[in-house]
């Protein structure tokens, strides 16, 4: 092995350890934050007994979950039953590998390490575990795998509630995967690249994409909620209908693993929203953050953290505000509203970009994105003020059928 390859391996392992540790600690603290935020929104105080302000509560929960007895349902398919939590957990962690957490750093070193030997690294190091050139496609591929864990957990529990939860999860995640992917096509049209590093870079030159691609952002956020199975889309769990859905039969650390997976997914989706629509690690109105110094990396990392944190808070905020959708409403929202809007939006954005660049001949980033922003104001008005009149969510009745028609027909028969 060449010293350069060894250097690359050492750096990658270090990055993996850091990202994994930070994510796991973050996930633990997120469970506390969820409880705190929910408490505050209900005029309560939340956990505040273990450690200062309850900060050690996740540790106490973890110890409890490890020490608890693991129960297995009598007729469960034990192999799949044991495998399912891992299958839910692994894709959630895999996704965090491609997200650039900070500005690239210029690194130069040639040293001799014990056991490894001579290592060297020269050049810009991306602050992502793997700066894949196919970043976005990787996310689409891996996030679809998450459904296996939930569906298999529901199936192997041999419990009708779990099975229903698993089935709902499969249907929901497959449906919203489509809208999720479609919502990002306009973004790819603008950047012309699927790597996260490039997407961040193209936002530095102009506006953050949340303004010129607001509808994309909206659809992505809603689909993201559905992909992570959070309220208002927590059909697979649905405590009041399905007990706890797919993890009814799970106990101790296996149960925790589902929770960790859910929160890790939240972190990833929040980080993706921040990266794709809010400039990633970009600090606005400044250029020095691209300089490659360690200080810039730390500052941009903090900025990325703030953005991600805001969306994590939004996840909790929405969860403790909105009630759960009915199942058919969930499906019709995905297929009859989000998908058509996403498809129309692709067409409109593609036409607009063609018009701006080819017909009007404007290629500078800021005016181009500004015109797209104005277009989005108009489209946003159409979607939120004209379409959203009882059409986004509809009842289970067929539109146009007289109210109570079927019921009175049944009563007559």
């Amino acid at each position, binding site marked *: 092995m060449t010293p350069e390859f060894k250097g690359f391996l050492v750096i990658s392992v270090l990055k993996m350890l850091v990202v994994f540790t930070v994510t796991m600690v973050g996930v633990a603290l997120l469970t506390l934050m969820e409880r705190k935020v929910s408490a505050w929104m209900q005029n309560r105080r939340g956990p505040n007994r273990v450690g200062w302000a309850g900060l050690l509560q996740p540790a106490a929960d973890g110890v409890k979950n490890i020490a608890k007895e693991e129960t297995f349902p009598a007729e469960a398919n034990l192999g799949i039953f044991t495998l399912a939590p891992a299958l839910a957990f692994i894709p959630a962690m895999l996704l965090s590998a491609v997200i650039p957490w900070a500005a690239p750093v210029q690194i130069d070193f040639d040293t001799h390490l014990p056991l490894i030997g001579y290592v060297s690294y020269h050049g810009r190091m991306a602050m992502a575990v793997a700066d894949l050139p196919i970043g976005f496609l990787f996310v689409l591929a891996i996030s679809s795998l998450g459904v296996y864990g939930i569906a298999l957990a529901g199936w192997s529990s041999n419990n009708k509630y779990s099975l229903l939860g698993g089935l709902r999860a499969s249907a929901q995640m497959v449906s919203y995967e489509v809208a999720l992917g479609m919502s990002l096509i306009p973004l790819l049209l603008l950047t012309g690249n699927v790597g996260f590093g490039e997407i961040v870079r193209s936002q530095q030159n102009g506006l953050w994409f949340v303004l010129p691609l607001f509808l994309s952002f909206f659809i992505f956020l809603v689909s993201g909620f559905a992909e992570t199975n959070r309220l208002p889309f927590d059909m697979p769990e649905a405590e009041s209908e399905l007990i706890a859905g797919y993890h009814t039969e799970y106990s101790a650390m296996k149960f925790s693993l589902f929770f960790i997976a859910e929160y890790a997914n939240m972190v990833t989706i929040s980080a993706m929203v921040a990266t794709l629509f809010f400039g990633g690690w970009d600090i606005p109105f400044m250029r020095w953050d691209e300089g490659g110094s360690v200080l810039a990396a730390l500052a941009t990392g903090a900025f990325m953290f703030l953005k991600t944190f805001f969306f994590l808070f939004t996840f909790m*905020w929405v969860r403790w505000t909105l009630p759960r959708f009915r199942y058919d409403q969930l499906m019709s929202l995905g297929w009859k509203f989000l998908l058509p809007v996403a498809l129309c939006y692709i067409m409109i954005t593609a036409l607009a970009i063609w018009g701006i660049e080819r017909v009007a001949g404007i290629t500078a980033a800021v005016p181009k994105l500004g015109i797209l922003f104005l277009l989005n104001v108009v489209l946003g008005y159409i979607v*939120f003020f004209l379409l959203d009149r009882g059409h*986004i969510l509809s009842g289970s009745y*067929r539109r146009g059928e007289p*109210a109570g028609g079927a019921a009175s027909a049944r009563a007559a028969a």
Partner: protein
Amino acid sequence: MAIGVKVMKRPERQVSYVRAALKGMVLTFKHMFQPKVTMQYPEEKSTADERGTYTISPRWRGTHRMLTDEQGRSKCVACGLCPQICPANCIKLVPGEDEEGNRYPLIYEIDEFRCIFCGYCQEVCPEEAIHVGVHYENSEYSRDRFVYDLERLSSQVHPVSTLWDPSDPTGE
């Protein structure tokens, strides 16, 4: 689905899901900064009077207390009315009589596990001896500690319920 669901005709500003959702989110956000209502129990406690933030209801009937006279003897004259009226049959009374002919309880025990805290014993007592207390912290390490004998009942110091006033028996 062909289920006959009654369709509500609502004004248009009410049927907009996104705007309704945003309105709800503003509401929950406001709630985050409102004063918290949780009582921090071991540090803060409910009090019988109006001193603290949290007050016990005047209707509260807790564990019993036997009042004593100036000589430290219990006011009970062992008339037998309280075990008679007790619906849970939790009062054990063995009457005694001293040389001067005064009746007093030889044994007076209340099983607080059987007691339903109806307060009839306080209401029926002609001497205002037995009372239900304004008190709610009763934990013990063993079950037999919950049979309160005369000494225990007399040594309690917590305030007693004043809901039933003997001078105003009908509560006017």
